[in-house]
């Protein structure tokens, strides 16, 4: 009998490769039908355009792996952005101080909202779906209240400059998202915290019976989701050069879609950030390529929906495969 660990590895590579192959086919198709698709400028565009969703989806992967979900990320992102924006506009602060404190404020607000989501849902055993739906409204209302529905603008130039920076032709914001994904991957695969997330997602009761308390891990997992929302808010602000309380509407759905297309199971415990990266790339390539082809927006939405459903069908086959293995 061949070593079972290499068998697992092969299966895992096949699983990842399936999504990778789908992405490759898509890229080749668009390259063939849309001449400007493969230009350097357009590839830089795609990387910029998937950055925000990639950051949000990386955070979302933590919430979903632990058996939860976070529907509040778009609204919390708006709350983070308007609070950071308010800090950035304090005249008493110098530019570096304002930028530093603004970023800090955004991260703290994101972590607080995420941590609260995790605590309420696991302490009282309420489905995360409901708790985060409540948080969605709290954060959106909070963002409107803070700003009185007004747009905040005119941030310091060095802050806005980040949104268009590039290194050797690659957008810096994408490199940041990639680095964050790498760190997240290390945490999930190489730390006790990461293994606990998978364990709870797989069988929370077993974790409890073995003498561990899932509560702390679950709260931390949701806090990580919130941290990534805080980071995404800052990056998004540098791209828009404004902050307003209605930004990020529906972003949670794109982030969840990227995670699911990437092969992470909605019931938790199974999936990886490599898949999330591929999932976000598929959504971004699809949107960009269909625009370049001149496909109508309504049809674009239909295609995205079909891809999500196909991904879940694929996932059900995979689940059966790993049960048998």
């Amino acid at each position, binding site marked *: 009998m061949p070593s079972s660990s290499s068998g697992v590895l092969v299966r895992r590579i096949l699983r990842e490769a399936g999504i990778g192959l789908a992405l490759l086919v898509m890229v080749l198709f668009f390259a063939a039908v849309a001449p*400007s698709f493969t230009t350097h400028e357009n590839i830089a*565009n795609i990387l910029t355009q998937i950055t925000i969703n990639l950051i949000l989806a990386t955070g979302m992967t933590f919430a979903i792996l632990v058996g939860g979900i976070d529907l509040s990320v778009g609204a919390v992102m708006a709350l983070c952005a308007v609070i950071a924006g308010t800090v950035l506009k304090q005249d008493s602060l110098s530019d570096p101080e304002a930028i530093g404190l603004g970023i800090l404020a955004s991260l703290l607000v994101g972590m607080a909202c995420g941590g609260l989501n995790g605590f309420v849902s696991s302490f009282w055993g309420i489905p995360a779906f409901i708790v985060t739906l409540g948080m969605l409204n709290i954060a959106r209302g909070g963002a409107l209240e803070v700003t009185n529905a007004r747009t905040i603008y005119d941030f310091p130039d060095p802050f806005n400059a980040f949104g268009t920076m590039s290194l050797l032709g690659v957008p810096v914001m994408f490199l940041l998202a990639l680095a964050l994904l790498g760190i997240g991957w290390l945490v999930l695969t190489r730390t006790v915290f990461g293994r606990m997330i998978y364990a709870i997602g797989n069988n929370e009761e077993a974790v409890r019976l073995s003498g561990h308390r899932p509560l702390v891990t679950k709260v931390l997992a949701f806090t990580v989701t919130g941290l990534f929302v805080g980071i995404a808010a800052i990056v998004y602000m540098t791209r828009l050069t404004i902050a*307003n309380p209605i930004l990020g509407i*529906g972003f949670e759905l794109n982030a969840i879609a990227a995670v699911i297309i990437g092969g992470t199971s909605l019931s938790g415990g199974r999936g990886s950030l490599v898949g999330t990266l591929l999932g976000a790339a598929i959504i971004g390539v699809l949107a960009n390529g269909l625009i370049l082809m001149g496909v109508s*927006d309504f049809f674009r939405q239909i295609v995205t929906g079909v891809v999500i459903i196909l991904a879940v069908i694929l996932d059900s086959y995979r689940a059966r495969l790993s049960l048998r293995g």
Partner: protein
Amino acid sequence: MDRRTFLTGCAAGGALALAPGLASAQTKKPVIGLVMKSLANEFFKDMQEGAVKHAQERGDLTLLPLGIQSETDIDGQIALVENLITKKVDAIVIAPADSRALIAPIARAVKAGIKVVNIDVRFDPASMRKHHIDIVFVGPDNRAGAKMSGDVLAKALGAGGKVVIIEGNPGAENGVQRKLGYMDAIAQGKLDLLDSRTAHWETEEANTVFSNMLTAHQDIQGVMAANDSMALGVVKAIEAAGRKGKIKVVSFDNIPAIQPLLQDGEVIATVDQFGAQLAGDGIDAAMQEIAGKSLTGWTKTELKLVTAPGS
């Protein structure tokens, strides 16, 4: 990148074979990208269809109409502009989802030699100055339009008339301008403003919001709605409260669904901003710019007050 180097090389070599290719490139029709807001909104859908028809009638350009998923999808609109820059279109006609956030990508388009015309919602002048661009705006004066509509209500009620405003999306520039126009009419007509709230341009929400207002203020005599969709919801609430004919409504947009209410006199005025022609006007301006004319400032488009036959 490679292709450009190759072409430059050929041109430098004076390759005769390329001459016909160059000639046809010169006579090629200019490509104009039309960047709209949500095409799920009938107003923008009409505008887009008007633009496509207008482009066909002109016949001297290729139009690429593009829209975003929802009114608030600013990022999606920035992505559209970036993609059009990559496509190296000749001009962009844009109805911005935000009057400031779109300035940076539009400035990049201008830098790339693309002509830009702004329609529907005007770019923030201070932000334009910061980016050293001056883009022509082709569009209606929403404030003046709302003032015309509000004046009809002021005249109907007389000084001291008690009114409420149903606002559009908070932060949406045309919504802000329409509210200002209504406020102008209230100040001039010495009306009494009881309350002013948003219903996010939506019929259903306007129905709820106005019903609640009516509970709080039994003595409302008039309503100023920032668009017709919301006026529809307001009229339903008035009928449900059994106050039909006692509360007068003025509005904005002149959509088909408002016509029967105008006939009935439940809505006494609305304003037509000829949305279907707006993008066409923008395309005409873009073609002038491509021909070498430099346009700046505000080209005001037509507004028409539409009143109930009886009033």
